[in-house]
């Protein structure tokens, strides 16, 4: 009796934050919609006119599409690592934030692979991958890993949602249209909180949170190996896989903090997303920034010290203030140090500074990925001797920009839609289950 009442009240309270869209929200919705239309037009242009409309050419064969791909798969780590690890460790304070984290995972894992498709010259021949697939190719690994990862993260998100779906199904206070209630009924899988059901669901969640961690590690390692397996300066490095994994968790945590800040600020979920959550995540961010900085230092120190001319050429392009220097120092130094200071020094640390630290980290990680992809491709072993400037240096075209912002817009749009259909704060998790019998009898 008690439980059902408290839980339903909580549920209604949470959904009250996501009632009729406010004016601001409507404007944002239109804005993101317009960006998406622009991206669709860019996509149409690329399909009709071919890859010539992008900045990609014979040397820089992959541009910001692959940067975005790494970026989105990177931020998907929010759910996998934060939610998975904290679940396994039974960390109590994780409960209000896991839904946001897992949604970031699912949405970004759906958006990310679109970018790798944009790099493919003949989308009409994708069936060749299952037909003639060679498992020696890291691309094949990537296809398999990402499909598995996406399935896994959807499953993980769903498992955590089952109890909330049950609450939605049983809710009487809110006006939920019948069709939606039917969907909730299907998704709730006849879950009534029976001890046996609870045991099985717990087992499923534990297995899933254990499995999603190595899965996420493998996905990003495979991604790193696409670069690491080629004999190219700046790519052919043994630490590339862990380096990518750490960068991914780092950016994933940062995006999670930003998302939490937005929900707290604009949807007034202060009651659930408290300062302590920001501080705990801020500490995780601090640690990750440290590890990331350590990897970066180790990578470039080794390469620079080794002084191989081919490697040095790329490294000097990154260090040169007239070349990629400003970006490199911002991403590799600033992107590590600023977040560490903002999230680490106790008397500066607060919700806003931690969020600023996260914004810097996210920007830094995007730029860092650009610096991993482009300068290396601009430095082939045999020097580029081409008279066409677009073949010597990569420059991002409007098509690529539109599609990049399109991805970001889709990310936000997905969130804006999803939060109206599922509780963004896991109600069943935060309301302790005391009396199962009550739960059942109340229903009947």
């Amino acid at each position, binding site marked *: 009796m008690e439980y059902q009442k408290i839980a339903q009240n909580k549920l209604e309270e949470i959904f009250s934050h996501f009632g009729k869209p406010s004016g601001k929200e409507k404007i944002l919705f239109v804005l993101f919609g317009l960006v998406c239309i622009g991206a669709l037009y860019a996509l149409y242009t690329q399909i009709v006119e*071919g*890859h*010539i409309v992008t900045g*990609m*050419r*014979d*040397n820089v*064969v*992959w541009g910001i599409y692959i940067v975005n791909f790494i970026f989105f798969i990177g931020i998907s780590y929010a759910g996998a690592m934060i939610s998975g690890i904290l679940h396994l460790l039974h960390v109590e304070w994780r409960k209000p934030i896991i839904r946001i984290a897992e949604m970031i995972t699912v949405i970004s894992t759906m958006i990310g692979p679109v970018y790798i498709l944009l*790099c*493919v*010259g*003949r989308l009409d*021949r*994708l069936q*060749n*991958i299952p*037909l*003639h*697939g*060679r498992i*020696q*190719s*890291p*691309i*094949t690994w990537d*296809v398999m890993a990402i499909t598995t990862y996406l399935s896994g993260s959807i499953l993980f998100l769903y498992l955590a949602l089952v109890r909330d779906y049950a609450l939605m199904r049983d809710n009487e206070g809110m006006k939920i249209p019948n069709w939606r209630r039917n969907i909730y009924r299907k998704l709730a899988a006849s879950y009534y909180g029976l001890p046996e059901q609870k045991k099985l669901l717990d087992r499923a969640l534990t297995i899933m949170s254990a499995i999603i961690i190595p899965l996420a590690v493998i996905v990003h390692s495979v991604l790193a190996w*696409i670069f690491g*397996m*080629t*004999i*190219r300066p700046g790519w052919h490095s043994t630490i590339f896989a862990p380096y990518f994994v750490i960068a991914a968790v780092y950016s994933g945590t940062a995006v999670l903090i930003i998302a939490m800040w937005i929900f707290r600020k604009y949807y007034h979920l202060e009651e659930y997303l408290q300062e302590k959550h920001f501080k705990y995540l801020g500490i995780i961010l601090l640690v990750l920034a440290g590890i990331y900085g350590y990897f970066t230092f180790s990578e470039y120190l080794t390469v620079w010290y080794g002084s191989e*001319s*081919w490697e*040095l*050429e790329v490294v*000097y392009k990154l260090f040169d203030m007239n070349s990629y220097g400003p970006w490199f120092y911002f991403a590799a130094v600033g992107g590590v140090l600023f977040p560490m200071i903002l999230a680490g020094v106790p008397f500066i640390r607060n919700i806003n500074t931690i969020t600023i630290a996260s914004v810097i980290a996210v920007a830094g990680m995007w730029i860092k990925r650009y610096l991993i992809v482009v300068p290396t*491709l601009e430095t*082939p*072993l*045999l*020097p*580029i*001797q*081409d*008279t*066409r400037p677009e*073949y*010597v240096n990569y420059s991002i075209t409007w098509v690529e920009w539109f599609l990049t912002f399109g991805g970001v817009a889709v990310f936000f749009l997905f969130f804006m839609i999803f939060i109206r259909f599922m509780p963004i704060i896991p109600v069943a998790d935060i309301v302790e289950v005391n009396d199962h019998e009550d739960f059942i009898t109340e229903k009947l």
Partner: protein
Amino acid sequence: MKKNSRRDFLVKGATAAVGTVLAGGLLSMCTKKDDLEATGEKVKLLDTNGNLVEVDKGHMLCCSAPGSKEVRKGMPGRHFVMVIDLSRCRNARRCVDACNSMHYLPPHHEWLKVFLMQDSEDTSSYWFPKPCFHCDTPACVNVCPVGATFKREDGLVLIDNERCIGCKFCMAACPYSSRVFNWDEPKSPNAVYSPESSVPQRVGTVGKCDFCPDFFKRGELPDCVMACPNGVFFYGDKNEDVVTNGIESFRFSELVKNKSAFRYMEELGTRPSVYYLPPVDRLYPVEKGFEDMPEETRKAYEVRRAHIKKFNV
């Protein structure tokens, strides 16, 4: 090693025109199958100037269909190799033109490139013609997700551009920048495609030097070899141990031994099928290659020179 009067003649500095005319005539006597029958059947093709020309189908008949077993296996018992004599190259670029015209490639879209190389600041620069190296452990083949590019038993690395999905991973993996992407709709004639002729090219797929198996199936030397006024390119079957540039022929094993041949960037472990003879006792000074060079091309090479100074690479 066998030297004959033609070599001496060349060494004395034959003009390009005479060299080409003689080479054309000589080859007809030199090849084994010089009396290959024309089939009489014609196919209509667009030539590089956009004119419709009729070509004997024998020109294409010898090629195996894409996806067939033969095309992936190659000529049994062969291992094709190329020896490039850097001491003879003066960047005449006839090889580039010949290759582009026979594969209907637009200007700048080069499968065979001539680089200006300089190993260090104090050493001399030299011209470095570079086809695909057809490596024995090819990085590009390893990474292809669909087996569109493959290594054959006769040493060739070919591309099936009817299977290629255009992911460009092979281009990223090739350490020699041998691969060129068809960013735009290629202006190839509407011919019967085979990975052995590489014509026509397809938009959104990768192309590269194919060592011209359509030519050697007829016992002919590729156009780059024939077009070279200085006999820079030697081509042959390593298993037969003879390479030829259409005028001279050498025992492959003796040539690479006696002239200290090297393979470019041996340390990468790619085991190329292209051997270079070092640029010693050169026929022409490197500056000769800049003569009659269009301003924009010269600029590209100047960039390279500045680069050598800056990075000493």
